[in-house]
């Protein structure tokens, strides 16, 4: 009788010990360097709140926040690449889900699979399958933990202003070009505001999604839609006509400037990702639904173009134990509910507390509804469906097209670029 008792005692003890070490993890210690480009506004506040809570859970871990400012991540990625090449990886770093992760870091074999973390926490059911597909390889290895979801194809406007100018939200770009745009130009209002180069590329992807449909748009990235086809030339033609309805000083404006034009009534519409909601809410202190309102960008009803910020574990990270603790924390509903209301994005974990209106405002309630019901596609301008080299080359194509308006040449250049950078292979 004694022996089984002893065994069960040992088992209980082991279990208890295991639970303790798994839950509060007193054995995790040392430095944890977190690398990101979140250095301002809600992003920084969100990251700091995450770090604060993490430090409460793991007091032994010394968190080092090494964020690199500027260039919407270009500078940070330059530093990151240099550090990875020099064999000095940070413990964990921010990367967009999709090709930005897959075509470089995973392809080069520098990321640790994190399936065990997902299984331990039961996240395989908590995170949407479409998102998991973007962050895993063909063998099913998952490489990062997503913190948030942003929507790219959103049209922003001020309802009161539209009423005053006598226009409605256009259902597609045809309506916008033929009805909305002339009416607004007559009224002396900029129909659509847009900013510097990358915001133009951002507008382009919404136009492409509308003109090609979700399947055709995805085809651009998996090789089924030919970049040199008449359909893509048509996208550029429509895009050119839309540019004619935008403000002339676009190259002098940031995305905030362009969004502000809508808020101040100098422009009617603006296509921008839903980080603009945070800008309207926090920086401009507007009421959702009155001070600003939203719709899917014209012709993309029922499609959710997404991007997502994620964190992963690079091979040779100095302190992998701490990273695993950090990532296990990052995916929890608690962490997602700390970060996303501050950053102004949707939680990636479906068991997060999205219904709480204290945390997520009307825009996010509605966007979450779309996120769970719509067709999901990835954003090109934000690294989800195309590698860095393509995004860089595409910036040139957009800038050249904005100047010469040669749709056929732009489409041919994009086809060549896709070929050279391995898009659609």
């Amino acid at each position: 009788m004694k022996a089984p008792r002893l065994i069960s005692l040992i088992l209980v003890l082991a279990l208890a010990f295991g639970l303790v070490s798994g839950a509060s993890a007193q054995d995790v210690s040392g430095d944890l360097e977190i690398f990101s480009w979140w250095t301002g506004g809600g992003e920084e506040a969100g990251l700091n709140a995450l770090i604060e809570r993490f430090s409460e859970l793991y007091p032994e871990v010394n968190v080092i926040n090494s964020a690199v400012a500027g260039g919407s991540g270009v500078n940070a990625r330059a530093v990151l690449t240099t550090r990875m090449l020099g064999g000095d990886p940070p413990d964990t770093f921010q990367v967009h889900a999709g090709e930005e992760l897959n075509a470089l870091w995973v392809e080069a074999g520098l990321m640790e699979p994190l399936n065990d973390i997902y299984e331990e926490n039961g996240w395989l059911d908590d995170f949407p399958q479409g998102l998991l597909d973007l962050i895993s390889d063909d063998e099913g290895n998952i490489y990062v933990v997503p913190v948030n979801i942003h929507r790219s194809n959103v049209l922003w406007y001020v309802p009161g202003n539209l009423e005053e100018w006598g226009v409605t939200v256009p259902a597609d770009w045809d309506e916008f070009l033929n009805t909305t745009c002339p009416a607004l130009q007559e009224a002396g209002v900029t129909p659509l505001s847009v900013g510097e180069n990358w915001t133009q590329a951002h507008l382009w992807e919404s136009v492409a999604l509308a003109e090609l449909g979700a399947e055709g748009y995805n085809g651009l990235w998996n090789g089924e839609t030919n970049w040199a086809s008449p359909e893509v030339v048509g996208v550029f033609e429509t895009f050119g006509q839309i540019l004619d309805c935008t403000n002339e000083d676009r190259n002098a404006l940031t995305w905030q400037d362009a969004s502000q034009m809508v808020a101040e009534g100098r422009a009617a519409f603006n296509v921008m990702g839903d980080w603009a909601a945070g800008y309207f809410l926090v920086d401009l202190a507007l009421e959702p639904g009155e001070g600003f309102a939203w719709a899917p960008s014209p012709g993309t009803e029922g499609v959710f173009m997404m991007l997502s910020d994620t964190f992963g574990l690079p091979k040779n990270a100095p302190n992998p134990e701490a990273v695993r603790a950090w990532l296990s924390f990052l995916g929890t509903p608690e962490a997602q509910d700390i970060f996303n209301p501050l950053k102004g994005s949707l939680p990636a974990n479906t068991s997060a507390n999205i219904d709480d209106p204290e945390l997520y405002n009307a825009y996010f309630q509605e966007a979450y509804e779309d996120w769970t019901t719509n067709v999901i596609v990835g954003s090109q301008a934000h690294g989800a469906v195309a590698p860095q080299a393509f995004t860089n080359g595409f910036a040139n194509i957009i800038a050249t097209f904005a100047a010469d308006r040669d749709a056929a040449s732009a489409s041919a250049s994009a086809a060549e670029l896709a070929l050279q950078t391995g898009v659609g292979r």
Partner: protein
Amino acid sequence: MISSLNRDRVIAFLMLLPSIVLVAIFVYGFIGWTGWTSLTNSNALQQLSGQPAQFVGLQNYTELFAGMLNNRFRIDIVNTVFFTILFIALCLSLGMGLAMLLDQQVKGESIFRTIFLFPMALSFVVTGVVWKWLFNPSSGLNVLPTFIGLQPFRFEWFISEQRWLEFNWQDLPQILAIILLGVVVLAALIAWSRKRSQLAALLAAGAILLIALISFEVPRQLNALSRPETHGFNLALFAVVVAAGWQMSGYTMAMYLAGLRGIPEELREAARVDGATELGVYRHVVLPMLAPITLSAMIILGHISLKIFDLVYTLGGGDNLWIDMPGINMFFTTFRAQEFARGAAIAMIMLIMVAVVIVPYLATQLRSEVER
């Protein structure tokens, strides 16, 4: 005696050795490494996955000059040429003008000198941000005339899409040949007027050869670009020229002022005694003596303008092709597209451009020092 000389030499060599080694590694070693990288297909993926880079010869260079996707690089080259010419011209004329005014024994000269020199103390980044606000088409300099009841300026500064002197890149060999022809003809005329008939005849023969080549369209066949591509002088560059000129003309002024102070008063007096007007004194005495200063200023301004990055980056935001420069393209190609080899090729071309300006200057300086 001899042994102590030898000891001195050994000590001198030992003293110099650390800097020689450091410069050899960190300057020339890395230039060599960049040159090698530009001949490979190195990129981030290949580097990170630890595969060896493959040698591809001059492919990156031909891509830059003739590749369909690299029109941005060709825009950069054209922009650099126009920007350099205008920037140097503005700084030299403004700098010399200010120096001459200050040279008139004005009251409070040191205050003016400080004011004119002040912008140079700023970083180009600050200049870029400030002038970005000033140049904003709807709120900056353009609204100045409205304060006195006039219409605002309509020029859109750094986002202007106007272009002068348009040409097709495919015609570039032809254009360069015609420019070369002009230079040769001019040289031949000068040689002829100086009674050096042999040289004149040689140059004339060269000119006839060039005319023949051009009329048989030989340069046109050197065109490697598959479709026409319009380039020209982008008026948006005026914004960069003004901002950069604002910053650097004070520096040029200081150089010229030092030069003017170095001209002995006796020379001017002598000229005046000979009956020269004040203008004549400047034209025949002062300006010729300032020639070495002008050369130094051109070298210094030239290498600034060829390498310019920060000013244009902050002014234009990075992807504004109307004022784009090779430095920005190099940064984006290397770190945004992560195509290291292509970026290295742009860096090498920038190095060659700067070397074309600097090396002859250094060589003459060195020669004159040896002569001394």
